[in-house]
C-alpha cells in the first residue's frame, strides 16, 4: 500500500541541494521549491531515506518526511490550495 508523503528539505550547500533535488525527482513530483509530493511504499521510503542519507550533511541539512496517510482515502484530500490550483492525479494506469 502506498502512502502520500511530503518530503521537505533545507540544504545549506548548493552542490548537495542539486544532488538532493535530482534524487527526489526519481521518487516524486516537484510540488514547490524544496517540497516533493511522493507516493511511497515502505520499500520506496526506505530507499529514498537511504539515498538522501548518503548525500546530506548531518549537522547542517535537514529533510522532513510528512506522512499524509494512505493514497486511497485520506491522502488525496488533506491538501488544499490557495492561489494556483493543486491537483492530484490517481489512476489505475498511465496512458499517453
Amino acid at each position, binding site marked *: 500500500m502506498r502512502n502520500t508523503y511530503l518530503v521537505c528539505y533545507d540544504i545549506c550547500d548548493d552542490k548537495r541541494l542539486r544532488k538532493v533535488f535530482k534524487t527526489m525527482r526519481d521518487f516524486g513530483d516537484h510540488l514547490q521549491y524544496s517540497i516533493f509530493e511522493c507516493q511511497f511504499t515502505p520499500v520506496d521510503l526506505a530507499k529514498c531515506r*537511504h539515498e538522501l542519507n548518503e548525500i546530506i550533511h548531518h549537522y547542517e541539512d535537514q529533510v522532513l518526511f510528512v506522512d499524509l496517510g494512505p493514497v486511497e482515502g485520506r491522502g488525496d484530500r488533506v491538501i488544499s490550495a490557495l492561489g494556483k490550483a493543486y491537483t492530484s492525479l490517481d*489512476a489505475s494506469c498511465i*496512458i499517453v
Partner: protein
Amino acid sequence: MIQAENALLPARMINEYVYCPRLFYYEHVEGIFVHNLETIEGSHVHTRVDGKEDDLPPAAELLETDRPANRRSITLSSEQYGIIAKLDLLETDGSLVTPVDYKRGEPCKAEDGSIEAWPADRAQLTVQVLILRDNGYVCEEAIVYYARTKQRVRFTIDEQLVAETLQQIDAARRLANATEIPPPLEDSPKCPRCSLVGVCLPEETRRMSNVRSISRQQMILFEVEPNRTANLSNQPGDEDVRRLVPSRDDLKPLYLNQPGLYVGCSRKVLQVKDKKKIVQQVRLNEVCQVNLFGSIQVTTQAIQAICTEEIPIAYFSMGGWFYGVTHGLGVKNIYLRREQFRWADVPSFCLRIARALVAGKIKNQRTMLQRNHIEPPKVALVHLKCMQEDAETAFSQESLLGIEGNAARVYFQNLQGMIKVNDPEDSPTDSGADDLFTFEFNSRNRRPPKDPINALLSLAYSILAKDLTIISQTVGFDPFLGFYHQPRYGRAPLALDLMEPFRPLIADSAVLSAINTKMIRPEHFIRAGNAVALTPDGRKAFFRAYEQRMDTLVTHPLFGYRVNYRRILEIQCRLLARVLTGETTNYPVFVTR
C-alpha cells in the same frame, strides 16, 4: 546432470537454511531473489561495512602484542567444510579474532527478558568461526550487531553449537543437491515478512497439497515430511487461508499509444516526448510494464533502465496486434522450463490440463450470462452446463476443441443481451449519418473485426494475451509451449492456455462495462474498408476500462481471500508451475463463485 560437487556454500545461505529450508532452496538452488523492505534495509545496514575490503594478515603474523584493530569486509573460505563467508567486520585483539555480523532487525528476546541472537544468525556466525579456525586463527566468540536497537549480542562458540552447525551445513548441502523442493513452513510467523512469500505461496501450496496422492507421499525426501502430512490430513480443509501476498501490488502499467512518441530516460525517470517536448514523465519505480502501440521510439538508455528494473516492454501494432516482449534477464534457472517441456510431451497430462481450462472457461462464460444478461437465457445456460460437463470428461484434445467452439457459439449468440446501451432513446436520432456505429453484436469475427464490439474484443484478448505472456515469463515458463494450444498458432500458446478461463471474466467483462458505462461511445470507432478500428481516444478509454477490471478485487474461490485480477493471474500461473514440479497434483482453474 553433474552438480559442481566442490562448489563452496556461502555462510549466508546457512542462515537462510536455518530460517526456512524452502527459502534456501529458492535462493541457492533456483537463484530466485526478491527484494522487500527487510532486504532493502538489510543492504543499507551493510553499506558502511561493505565500503572497502580490508586485508587480513595470515594467522601466523597476528602477534599477542598487537593492538586491537577492526578489519571490514573480509572474504574467507574453508576447503575442509566447503563453505565461503564474507565477514562484515573482524575485530582482532592480539592473536584473538572475533567476527561481527550486521543485521538490520532486533535481537531475539529470551524468556527471562535477556537478549540473544536468533538461531539463524547464530548458525551463520558459527560457520564464520569454523572458517576462521580452519584458516588457523584463534577464535572463541562471535558477535551479532542488531542495527534496529543498536545492540551487540556476544556469544561463545561451544562444541554443542559447532556440532549443530555442522549438521546444518550437511543438511543444506544435501538439499542443494536434491531435486525436490522442501514443503513450505506450516502457519509460520516467519512467512508474512519473508521476501519470497509471493513466490513460495506457503499457504496456497499447503492447501493444494492436502489432496496430494499417496504415491507421492512415499517419495518424499525429507525427514519432517511424514509427520507434516499426517497433521495436515486431520485439518479441516475448507477454512480460508491467510492472505500473505498484498491484494494489490501498487504498480501501474504504462500505455503509449500516440504515433511519433519518443521515450528517453533521465536517471530513473522515463521522459515521454512528442516533437522534442516532454509530455509526461514517468518514474520507473511506479511502473510494472511498458506497452508500446505503433511507431514509438525508445532509446537504448531507456531500454537498459527498464530492463534493469525487470520491467517488461510489450510491442503492439497500431491496430493492437501483439508482436513480442523485451525482458530483463528474468528467471535465471531452467528447472521449471525443463519440467514444462517434459510434461508437454505427455498427452494424458496435456489433456487433463486442457479439460480443466476449457471447462473453467465455459463455467465462467455461463456465470457471465447469468450475472449480466438482461434476461438470462435458460436454454443457453442448460446447454453451457452440459458442455462444461462434457469438457471435463472429453477424451481427446480434438473433441475439446469442438466443445469449446460450440460453447463459444452459444455464448456469443447471447452476448447481445449483456449490452444495455442500444435503447432507442439513448441514441441520437438527428445525426442520420450512416457511418454512426451502434453496439450490435451478431457473431464473433476477426482479422479484421467488422463491428465495434468485435474490435473491442480483439483488442481485449490481445492485451490479455500480453499480460499472461509476461506473467508466465516472470514465473519461469516458456510461453511458446502450451498444453492445449499447439505451437503452430504463432502466438504464445501457454499464454493462450492460461487465458482461457479469464477471457470472459477479464476481457469480455472489460468490453461490456466499457460499453455499458459509456466509457466507449460510437464516436470512438472508425471504419477502414470493411474493418472497424478504435480511434486513439477510444483506445485510451478502453485501456482505462481494461485496467479498471484488472484492478478489481475478487475473492479466490479456493483460498477465500480478496486480491485483484492482476494478482490472481500470477497466483494461477504459479499454481500451474506447482503441478509441473510435482508439488501438487491438481490445477485449480479460476472460476468465480
